């Protein structure tokens, strides 16, 4: 029999905030048959378990909860009559934009005019960070604990230590404290927190939860359930300082040690991955190295604000639609953009120079009173943006007008005094 064969204009893989905004934008940009494929049983992705507020401050000038923010887009998806396939898992994508997906209704193969990758990211695990010791129960990534607590009414533990100060970890520290657990502290290996400053204030300081910087968990203890962890201070090279170890009794360890864009499907499709972001290498239309395949949201690079995800997805959806209807001009040359001093990454990694662009970037470490400067191949300034505070936890987005790009053949973006 074989899989059912279908043809679609724009196929959006993932129904989280990126996929939703991309689909809405694709439809608004003139593609009639847009379809969202979502493996979960509802749209909204990770926002469904983010019941705290703070979403939408930029986009809607309101503090919404995760589900409320998602709902604004879900309503548009419904109003525009965009097709959605729920409980449907994409099994593979190839470089000719053929998608194989599976659901209870059957297997089907879709030939897509354009594809938007919006699969989001996954959490780094204990194995991935070489956490030594035994393998007791009670060790969770923060996002898994969030899912269990907020969506399934399951309490994961009573005495918790949080390893890593990523935003989900901070939010879960507060969540556990609110539910009566004793949160012993947040231990961050870096000399500065990885999460947003506002989360440090609202999730830790307001709840009296201590944040220990340059400190990390070095061993797990317990044969069955976690009995405790050993923590220790580290030096500048992140090596454990002997003699600083101490034992913290706890039955729960939440890991918030990084997010990894989930690009296994992208890789299979032949999409080139940029090691600095873990996401696709894209141009200023957010098209990847594979023709007609676009990427946006956390699968492209990890964001700290959903508002920026939506903004990025608007663009990916727009250009995917243009590509699908055959209105995208092929480019013959690109201007490469590279991160310079003090900058961890920039995105897109190449631009046409023919339109205004938004450059996303993160700095390498916290700094104050500096400027982000873009320079061309001759060292001439293209843009300069002064910042009072720069922090790796805060992604920056800088708009550059196309007029500024004349005569530019390559660009480097760095931090200057």
């Amino acid at each position, binding site marked *: *029999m*074989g*899989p*059912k064969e279908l043809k679609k204009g724009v196929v959006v893989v993932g129904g989280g905030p990126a996929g939703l905004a991309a689909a809405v934008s694709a439809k608004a940009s003139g593609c009639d048959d847009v379809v969202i494929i979502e*493996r979960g049983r509802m749209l909204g992705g990770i926002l469904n378990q983010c019941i705290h507020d703070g979403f939408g401050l930029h986009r809607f000038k309101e503090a919404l909860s995760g589900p409320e923010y998602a709902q604004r887009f879900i309503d548009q998806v419904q109003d525009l009559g965009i097709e959605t396939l729920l*409980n449907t*898992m994409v*099994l593979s994508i190839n470089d000719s934009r053929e998608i*194989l997906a*599976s*659901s*209870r*209704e*059957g*297997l089907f*193969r879709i030939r897509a005019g354009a594809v938007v990758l919006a699969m989001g990211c*996954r*959490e*780094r*695990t*204990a*194995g*991935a960070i*070489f956490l*030594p*010791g*035994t*393998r*007791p*129960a*009670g060790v969770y*990534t923060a*996002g*898994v604990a969030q*899912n*269990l*607590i907020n*969506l*399934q*009414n*399951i*309490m*994961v*533990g*009573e005495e918790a230590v949080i390893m890593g100060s990523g935003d989900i970890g901070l939010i879960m520290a507060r969540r556990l404290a609110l*539910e009566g657990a004793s949160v012993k502290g947040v231990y961050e290996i870096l000399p500065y927190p990885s999460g947003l400053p506002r989360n440090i204030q609202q999730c830790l300081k307001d709840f009296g939860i201590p944040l220990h910087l340059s400190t990390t968990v*070095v061993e797990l203890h317990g*044969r*069955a*359930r976690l009995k405790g962890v050993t923590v220790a201070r580290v030096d500048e090279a992140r090596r454990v300082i002997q003699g600083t170890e101490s034992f913290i009794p706890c*039955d729960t360890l939440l890991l918030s040690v990084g997010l*990894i864009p989930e690009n*296994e499907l992208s*890789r299979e499709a032949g999409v080139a991955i940029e090691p600095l972001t*873990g996401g696709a290498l894209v141009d200023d239309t957010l098209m990847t190295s594979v023709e007609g395949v676009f990427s946006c949201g956390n699968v492209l690079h990890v964001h700290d604000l959903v508002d920026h995800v939506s903004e990025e997805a608007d663009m990916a959806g727009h250009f995917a639609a243009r590509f699908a209807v055959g209105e995208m001009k092929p480019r013959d040359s690109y201007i490469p953009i590279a991160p310079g001093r003090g900058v961890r990454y920039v995105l897109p990694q190449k631009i046409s120079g023919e339109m205004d662009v938004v450059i996303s970037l993160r700095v390498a470490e916290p700094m104050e009173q500096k400027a982000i400067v873009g320079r061309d191949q001759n060292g001439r300034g293209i843009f300069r943006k002064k910042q009072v505070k720069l922090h790796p936890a805060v992604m920056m987005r800088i708009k550059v007008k196309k007029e500024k790009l004349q005569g530019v053949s390559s660009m480097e973006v760095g931090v200057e005094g």
Partner: protein
Amino acid sequence: MGNSGAKETTSGSSTPQYDVVIIGAGVVGNAIARELSRYALRIAVVEKELDVGMGTSARNSGVLHSGIHYKPGSLRAKLNVEGNSLMEGLCRELKVKIQYIGKLTVAAEDEEMPTLHALKEQGEANGVPGLEILDPEDMEKLQPGVRGLKALFSPTTGIICPYTFTIALAESALLNGVDYFLGEEVREVKRNGQKFTVRTRKGLGLVSKVLVNAAGVLSDKVCRMLGINDYTIYPCRGEYLVLDKRLGHHLSTLVYPAPHKGKAGLGIHLTKTVDGNILVGPSNEYVDGPEDWATTSYIMGKLREEGEKLLPSLTTSDIIRSFSGIRAKQAPPEEGGFRDFVIESRTDVPGFVNLVGIESPGLTSSPAIARMVRDMVSALVPLREKPEFKPELDRMTGYFHELSAEEQADLVAKDRDYGEIVCRCEQITRKEVLEAIENPLGVKSVTALKFRARVMMGRCQGGFCLPKIVRILQEDFGYRPEDFFLYREGSHLFTGRVRS
């Protein structure tokens, strides 16, 4: 967690009588149980963990050795070669994946050539078929990029998933009438008259004519329960790193360095698994605890260095997990190396069949060990073949994700539960999860599901599927949060409800 085909402790009722009681449900205990289930015998397996195969049998390289490494005339040599040749047929019956991918033992320099030739001679003396010394050109054909002067190729070296195999043996034994008592730690064994009485920590009592000690790293302790003080196990840990499937295609055969004198293990190397991952390891460290399955930052660092040397495209995010296993060594640290398996029918304690020091190649040898034990048992109780013995398990070999799109579409059309993917990384379907939950031995831990359905085994280590599995167990099977164990008793995953 409930739903158990295995027997529950029935305190108070009369003590069940058996012909054979086997202590330990590792690959050895289960292979013996399954072999004996061909005969009209009352058989029980008693295991302290909540599932079979939770000890060393789930914690090894999964290599079916050819038998070149062991001294001719030793039990290890004989049982390895015999076990290896029995594996193919057994795996066909049990629907277990097996791949004879062969192995290159590589000599890097001239001085190692005599070792290679000696291994070949030794292998031939042991009856290992098809051994050949290959030139670099032929080595390259088998494993692109391999470097070295020459290599000994052993075509009968294979790979298997050790816990899948162990579980399949147990299920087959159970379906052929063997009773399983899981979560029952044997604490006391007495011999009165012609019979043994076995008592567990929870108070279960079993009486048996024959008692088989297949307790792995704890086999010396079981001996001591019967007053046999001849053996001491020196636990020797091997740590591994598990690499992402992305890298699996780099290995088409196994490549080991030629062995060096004085080294007890086979040296750190890369091993491909039947599921496409690569293992880096195992290390080789004597430790105090027979079940101290910790991993250490020192060894993990070493493994990573070695891994990067052997596989230059390895990146940090390719390392998805670490684990360790414990070798049941009889050789103390100062002696090092290997001693032979002890497999004996004790004359001082008639009816006691004792297996001690079943370290590598215990997995490979298990089918042959089972036959040897059968012969010992036949001298103790009469064996009569059961006409109803059913050697096959009714199931599919491998996983949904290994099928072609056409085959997958057909399966989904037949059963919609195949269409719903629960585990993203390994693309495991709801149907496979349901089958694991409803397996004949029962499920008492999420690790039992992991070892059966391969959920939580991928790069996200359950980040995606654990919540989904919890939902299935709660909504479709009525589990409560308190019922979830990670693997052993006391390993509660959750502490209750957030709100009642």
